[in-house]
């Protein structure tokens, strides 16, 4: 979707503020919402792409006004309701509805340790032919899907060169909507900065964007 999250190339967002000796978390609630996102993800009711999309759906004015972890609060609340794990009424009241059966947490301490150490690979070991070769000139398709996509607006319609073939990965545009993993090649595509931004960019500079096969066409 052409949402506010897709902000590459925008102006007017203000200066970059770097905090000296910044702590990992600024508030206790940030610790808890960070961990709850991971622990609730272990129920398998959604995937990483769906959780990113839940935050992209926050209306633009609120997205910009919210801090990073406030977006996680809004996103998680939506995911657990959509996933059937809680009701909206339960979230508002903070207590389970009368008569609900208590579950056993999926993410135990042992599983949390394993999750941190092993991660959740998005690559897939399936035979899928690459439609493009390293060194080939490609154009990022000019598509404007209303759902989730990882093709940023600034690259659409632009011509670049395949720099690397990273291998085969889950396709977020379908996976975020539970329409299948549709595994396919992901490439690092090099775009000359001037192709993206015109003469204001330095002639030798470039932007490398990771692109799924479906985002590209021959140029």
């Amino acid at each position: 979707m052409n949402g506010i999250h897709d902000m590459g190339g925008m102006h007017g967002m203000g200066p970059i503020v770097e905090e000296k000796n910044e702590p990992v978390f600024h508030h206790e609630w940030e610790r808890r919402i960070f961990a709850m996102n991971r622990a609730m993800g272990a129920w398998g009711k959604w995937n990483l792409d769906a959780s990113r999309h839940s935050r992209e759906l926050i209306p633009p004015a609120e997205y910009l006004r919210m801090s990073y972890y406030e977006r996680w609060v809004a996103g998680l609340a939506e995911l657990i309701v959509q996933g059937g794990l809680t009701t909206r009424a339960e979230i508002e009241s903070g207590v389970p509805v009368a008569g609900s059966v208590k579950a056993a947490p999926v993410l135990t301490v042992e599983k949390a340790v394993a999750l941190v150490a092993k991660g959740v690979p998005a690559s897939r070991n399936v035979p899928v032919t690459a439609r493009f070769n390293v060194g080939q000139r490609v154009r990022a398709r000019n598509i404007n899907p209303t759902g989730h996509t990882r093709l940023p607006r600034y690259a659409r319609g632009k011509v670049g060169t395949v720099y690397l073939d990273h291998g085969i990965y889950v396709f977020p545009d379908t996976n975020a909507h539970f329409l299948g993993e549709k595994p396919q090649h992901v490439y690092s595509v090099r775009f000359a900065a001037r192709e993206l931004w015109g003469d204001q960019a330095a002639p030798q500079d470039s932007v490398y964007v990771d692109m799924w096969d479906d985002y590209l066409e021959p140029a």
Partner: protein
Amino acid sequence: MTTTRRDFLTAAAATAGAAMTPDVSQAHQHEHEHQAVPSDPALRVKSLESLLVEKGLVDRAALDTLVDAYEHKIGPRNGARVVARAWSDSGYKQRLLSDADAAIAEMGYGGLQGEHMVVVENSVRVHNLVVCTLCSCYPWPVLGLPPVWYKSAPYRSRSVIDPRGVLREFGLELPEDVEVRLWDSTAELRYLVLPERPAGTEGMSEEALAELVTRDAMVGVAKVSVSKVGTVR
């Protein structure tokens, strides 16, 4: 999506963020965090945790384990050790640049949000810089969780269109003839910059070299300098 969903998000947002502040002011907000009355997101998250524990959906000890891992165990010192090893051992450096996952695993690191790593090398001629314009993708096993500025709208919007201006804001003025390569983390690949080894570090031990390497240098918004000893940036 449905009107219901939008209304809900609006309600969630309003409840979550009565004290909503833009990303850029979090540093200042931090100064007031020890106030007596908790802010609304604090109350909302407390209520959510209590609900999820009550329903048997989360285990508080597992939450503590996750927090502890990223607050105390996993951070930029991991990446600094990888960089120092690459500076000290040319064979390791070649492995790191050709198969980053395996080379980083050699050092005992890897896992969540670092499942698929790419290492890019800075030189006199080339300067690499990493961003995630769409969200906040960052190589957790080697750098820990990202700082607020990395996740903020100013960095995400501007680094891709004006990397040299952004670097200037971080105090790094690049010569005009240097080639800037900006890496936008749009997929599941996670990028680590291998900074240039500074002059005057010949003969230093790997441990001493690791002390010089900063988080910012491994994102690409700074260079490593000998005078930076002792800072945690």
